């Protein structure tokens, strides 16, 4: 049952690679495939919700030999929303005339396949392979998606992320050497009992690789040019979807595999997270073009995930998950809206701006509430003040961007009305998740109890 999304992904990408992606129906075929994977992921979610943990070892080999795929709350909690967002981005892009590149649709399916693999595999090296699959398709989408002069950002994006992958590869090698196994639960258990203590050096490598992926403060320099100069769908994909590899990685490797290393690094995470919030927000305020404001805003907002992880514990992990999802949905909505023209978009952008600033009823305020709860529980009043400050700065740059994009500039040519309606629907989802936050908060609570290992 767990292999269904993989099978759909592989077959579809195979077929799509053979077809000419510039034709409209091929893009719609890709969308159908991704929706199929989304449905399979939802089926897995239902199974996990019933308490059973679907898992499978490739090749039918005994445990430890073959690669184990398993769906737990953390994996499915990320897979379902992420696949949903990719489907939404592609749906809107199809309405606007489809992807321009011949193998564009295939790459979109491959990104979804890679991410499903990242979220559902229990093997560290297999995580690396699927990590590379999604990054490879992202490199290709950026390279093919950008027009003329902008293709240079693909080089910046690729070089930095290759360095990130190398770091992750070295970390996996280190983990294998320290524990003699690649299966995450086995690695976690052996690290727990390791006499020498947790391999902090390997943990710092993992941290660096995932921070680079999230574009967090010391490693943020590649984010603004790449997010602001790629076309809307590619930027929405990078900011809204691929950043999740970073947050998922931190939760999985930090929370499950190396909990005591995460505990040792708590202070560091708090400091880096807080610095990212401040610097990202300030840089966002300083910029005029909307795409750049959004780029810096995604850096700043990812800082909150770090802060939540820094707090740790049940409330911290729940807040980290909720914030990761809030950022993905918010950023995907904002980047897609910023890329299209015409009426109805002001409202959609406003919903995205509200979510980033934490204004109800858009879903952002749920993340902030979870973060405040974690901060108060962790007895960190300075952190509460910092988050309030961050929110005020977010108000400033998000609404400056809104005013500058929708109130000052006059849109001459309007995009296809169907695309605008689709974006409005996407905004409705962001509103609905804010008014009825049960799905996010419920999954967050489940993930927190999974990682903290307390009673379910």
């Amino acid at each position, binding site marked *: 049952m767990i292999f269904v999304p993989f099978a759909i992904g592989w077959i579809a990408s195979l077929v799509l690679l053979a077809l000419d992606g510039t034709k409209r129906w091929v893009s719609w075929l890709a969308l159908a495939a991704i929706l199929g994977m989304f449905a399979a992921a939802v089926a897995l979610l239902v199974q996990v919700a019933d308490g059973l943990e679907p898992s499978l070892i490739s090749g039918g080999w005994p445990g430890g030999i073959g690669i184990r795929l398993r769906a737990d709350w953390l994996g499915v909690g990320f897979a379902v929303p992420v696949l949903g967002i990719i489907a939404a981005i592609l749906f809107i892009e199809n309405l606007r005339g489809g992807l321009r590149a011949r193998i564009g649709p295939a790459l979109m399916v491959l990104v979804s396949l890679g991410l499903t693999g990242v979220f559902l595999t229990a093997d560290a090296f297999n995580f690396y*392979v699927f990590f590379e699959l999604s990054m*490879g398709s992202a490199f*290709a989408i950026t390279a093919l998606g950008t027009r003329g002069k902008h293709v240079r950002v*693909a*080089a910046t994006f*690729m070089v930095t992320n290759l*360095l990130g992958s190398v770091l992750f*590869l070295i970390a996996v090698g280190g983990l294998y050497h320290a524990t003699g196994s690649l299966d995450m639960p086995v690695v976690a258990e052996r690290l727990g009992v390791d006499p020498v203590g947790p391999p902090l050096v390997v943990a710092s490598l993992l941290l660096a690789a995932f921070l680079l992926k999230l574009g967090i403060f010391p490693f943020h320099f590649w984010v*603004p040019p790449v997010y602001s100069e790629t076309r809307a769908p590619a930027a929405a994909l990078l900011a809204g979807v691929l950043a999740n590899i970073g947050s998922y990685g931190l939760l999985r490797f930090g929370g499950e595999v190396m909990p005591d290393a995460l505990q040792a690094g708590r202070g560091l995470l708090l400091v880096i997270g807080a610095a990212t919030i401040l610097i990202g927000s300030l840089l966002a305020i300083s910029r005029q073009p909307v795409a*750049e404001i959004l780029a810096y805003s995604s850096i700043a907002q990812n800082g909150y995930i770090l802060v939540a992880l820094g707090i740790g514990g049940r409330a911290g992990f729940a807040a980290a998950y909720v914030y990761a999802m809030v950022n993905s949905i918010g950023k995907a909505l904002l980047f897609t809206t910023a890329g299209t023209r015409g009426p109805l978009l002001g409202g959609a952008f406003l919903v995205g701006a509200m979510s980033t600033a934490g204004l109800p009823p858009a879903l952002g305020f749920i993340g902030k509430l979870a973060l405040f709860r974690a901060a108060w529980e962790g007895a960190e009043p300075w952190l509460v003040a910092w988050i309030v400050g961050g929110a005020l700065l977010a108000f400033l740059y998000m609404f400056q961007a809104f005013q500058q994009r929708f109130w000052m500039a006059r849109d001459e040519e309007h995009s296809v009305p169907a695309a605008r309606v689709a974006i409005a629907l996407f905004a409705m989802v962001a509103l609905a998740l804010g008014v009825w936050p049960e799905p996010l908060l419920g999954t967050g609570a489940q993930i927190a109890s999974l990682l903290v290992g307390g009673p379910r």
Partner: protein
Amino acid sequence: MNLALALCVAVLFGAGIRLMLDRDLVRIAAGTILVSNAANLFLMSAGTGGPAVGQGQPTSSDPLVQALVLTSLVITFGFTSLLFSILHAIFRAWGTLDSREIDRPG
């Protein structure tokens, strides 16, 4: 033995980074190749540390590590050729590969 391996990985990685800091995009791409080679050597050395494995046959190092290195070699091959084709596209669009001209502050 560990020290020698560590030194060689360090030099490879350092040289790779030195190239990646350069302004010319081709040298940056060459830097990524060196850095990936360093990572592969690191992985390989992770295998040799363990007890010599395998009876009969000449004792070969840890087979699992060999499989990992093989996979990483192939992926690096794929990505580096993709990187060079991007450089090719940049050269066609900008007529130069000096990142100083290309990297106008965004």
